[in-house]
């Protein structure tokens, strides 16, 4: 009973505080309505929801299926042929890091109907599932494989009898993590497109009307869908495996392989591949030259064409606004997460209460969060900074706290057993144990930080790359739309690679292998 009370008390208190603050308009003069107000507004708007929800569900569902099918197939191919995996690494990293909002306008301009939403949802799930498939197929029981080989079974037999079925748990957990990404992707595409239905369209339409309770309602609905999609797969995998699964999100980025020296030729191919693919897709789909810029078209726009200097100037000005705030927000979010997770070792109760909250925020689509933060914080730079911080902070906190939780209790307590103080123990065990997770979190959240900044700029502040993209979309300035998309993808990849580089540098110096 006492345990139950301890578990339920914090959330109940939180809800109560929310209700009071909302009723009394305590936060930003009514930007945070009470939960009861939000729910009653949801009830009033109930006729609007079915059309929007089903549009978003249809697009994200279809994208989820297509993206996952491709991802499992790709994972299988990468495992069977390491050279292909290395060649595709550039494409994989680009897909993992690309801010969906950056390519949403391109997709809505070149494709029609539901297709852009489906594509963006599929792109959102591809990487997670592909990675999970590769991991699942790679980490198989070598002893069971030996049995198959001992009866003359070859690679095919081992794959069929041991590895494929053994990868199912990993793939299912990939689905689970990927499901909210599909919802996020679909909603982002709705932002960029002109469709009438979909939660993203609804949200965008309601943004200007200054009705916090409706915006919160839409955000709640989006979160609920994403959270439910996560939960559905959590239940399926638990049913299928009968084993308890720990909650973890975006568990792996592209592998930080230590000894993976590529031959220069393959490395070159990996870099060239995304550009080749870009060219080929435009060509295969016969996109008109005016609409679909090739790599050469973008180069031309930026450096050779008549308006090139102006275009460059606008781009650089936007970058100068976007980049510093992305980095500052990331640094603050990571530092905050690290501090809190490490301090949590000294106050386990806090971790026990806060970790589940942090995990729940992971399923909240960023697009639903942004308008709410705009309501709370206004349209200044502060909102961008806070979005970046929250986008970085929560996943990093979850990763680091769960990383620390993986250290065996005995190891954590050993220094204490020899009379070490709390601080000394922190320095001897907890810090070294959590450092790898900090770097992994940095690598994985860098792309999300950029996405957060761009969404804020697009929706709220009217500055930076996000705004430039939104404006160019309004003026049908195709050169600039492509340029911003390409530059932000490249920026995202660069942030990711920089984080990876720092991670390796520190880890080799410390004698710890880079985290998987």
């Amino acid at each position, binding site marked *: 009973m006492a345990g139950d009370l301890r578990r339920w008390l914090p959330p109940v208190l939180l809800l109560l505080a929310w209700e009071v603050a909302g009723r009394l308009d305590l936060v930003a003069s009514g930007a945070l309505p009470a939960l009861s107000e939000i729910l009653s507004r949801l009830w009033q708007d109930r006729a609007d929801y079915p059309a929007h929800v089903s549009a978003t569900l249809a697009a994200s569902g279809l994208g989820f299926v297509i993206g996952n099918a491709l991802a499992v197939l790709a994972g299988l191919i990468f495992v069977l042929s390491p050279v292909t995996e290395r060649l595709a690494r550039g494409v994989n990293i680009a897909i993992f890091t690309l801010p969906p909002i950056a390519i949403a306008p391109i997709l809505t301009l070149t494709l029609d109907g539901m297709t852009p939403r489906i594509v963006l949802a599929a792109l959102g799930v591809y990487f997670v599932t592909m990675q999970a498939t590769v991991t699942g197929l790679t980490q198989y029981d070598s002893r069971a494989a030996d049995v198959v080989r001992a009866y*003359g079974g070859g690679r095919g037999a081992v794959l069929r009898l041991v590895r494929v079925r053994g990868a199912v748990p990993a793939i299912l957990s990939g689905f689970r993590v990927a499901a909210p990404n599909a919802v996020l992707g679909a909603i982002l595409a709705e932002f960029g497109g002109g469709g009438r239905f979909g939660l993203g369209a609804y949200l965008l339409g309601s943004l200007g009307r200054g009705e916090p309770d409706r915006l919160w309602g839409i955000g709640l609905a989006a979160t609920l869908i994403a959270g439910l999609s996560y939960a559905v797969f959590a239940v399926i995998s638990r049913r299928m495996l009968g084993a308890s699964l720990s909650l973890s999100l975006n568990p792996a980025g592209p592998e930080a392989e230590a000894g993976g020296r590529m031959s220069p030729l393959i490395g070159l191919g990996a870099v060239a591949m995304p550009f080749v693919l870009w060219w080929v897709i435009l060509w295969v789909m016969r996109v008109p030259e005016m609409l679909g810029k090739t790599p050469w078209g973008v180069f031309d726009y930026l450096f050779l064409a008549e308006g090139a200097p102006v275009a460059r100037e606008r781009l650089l000005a936007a970058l100068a606004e976007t980049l510093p705030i992305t980095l500052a927000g990331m640094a603050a979010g990571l530092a905050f997460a690290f501090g809190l997770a490490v301090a949590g070792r000294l106050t386990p109760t806090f971790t026990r209460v806060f970790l589940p909250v942090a995990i729940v925020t992971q399923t909240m689509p960023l697009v639903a969060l942004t308008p709410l933060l705009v309501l709370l914080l206004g349209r200044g730079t502060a909102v961008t900074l806070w979005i970046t911080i929250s986008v970085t902070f929560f996943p990093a906190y979850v990763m680091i706290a769960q990383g620390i939780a993986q250290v065996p209790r005995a190891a954590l307590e050993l220094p204490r057993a020899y009379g070490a103080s709390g601080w000394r123990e922190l320095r001897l065990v907890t810090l070294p144990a959590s450092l790898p997770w900090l770097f992994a979190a940095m690598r994985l959240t860098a792309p999300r930080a950029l996405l957060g900044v761009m969404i804020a700029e697009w929706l709220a502040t009217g500055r930076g790359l996000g705004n430039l993209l939104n404006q160019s979309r309004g003026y049908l300035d195709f050169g600039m739309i492509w340029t911003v998309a390409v530059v932000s993808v490249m920026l995202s990849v660069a942030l990711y690679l920089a984080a990876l580089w720092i991670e390796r540098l520190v880890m080799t110096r410390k004698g710890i292998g880079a985290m998987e």
Partner: protein
Amino acid sequence: MTAPAGIALSGLSKTFTGRGKRIEALRDVTLTCPPGSFTALIGPSGCGKSTILRASLGLEPVDTGRVEIAGRPPAQATAAGLTGVAFQDAGLLPWRSVSRNIALPLEVLGRDVGSATGRIRDLITLVGLSGYEDALPGELSGGMRQRVAIARALVSEPRVLFLDEPFGALDQILRRQMNIELQRIWAETGATTLLVTHGIDEAVFLADRVAVMQANPGRIVEVIEIDLPRPREPSLFSAPHFHELCDRIAGVLHGG
């Protein structure tokens, strides 16, 4: 099927290099097991027993030396279904029931599983797991899993049987029972058997010959003939000559 199926290992050497360290797991190991014979391999842990077994099955490439099973290279012999094996770790597939785990070798060899149902049921009875046909490995104890592995080793009716400490996780009583069962199976099938064990009494009770190994580098230091008459009864465990042989092996093991 009645073609002589012996094991011939000649001059096997194997060095592992991992993270700067070199481990000479095998040096010039030569061992011949005539068709139908029972050989026990005994030695301290880490002396290369498992490596010999894996090399015999072609799972571990050797640096020098040659392996022949029934006069053929291991890859051919295993693919032809001449061999059966139970490794030190059971290595069961966690999603397969006991009977489907036992059927695995048949599937790999491309044989008909359906017609072997009766045989699989008999094997399950033999290893004392009746009633657990549909249990999953996760629901079994370590000893039970090992017995599944033994049943699996026998399912393909092998002419040559490799067993790597198959009774390691069993308690003493069950172990004795399984020793007696194994002797019976061996006598019935006439399969050439190579048993890796760390139990001296087990080796003497079962084998025609005991090959004693030592580590660093892993090598066979002596092969001791066991001239006890067959069939061997449980009462043998307390016979004076039995203990003499055990003492001799212990002497070689510890003598250096």
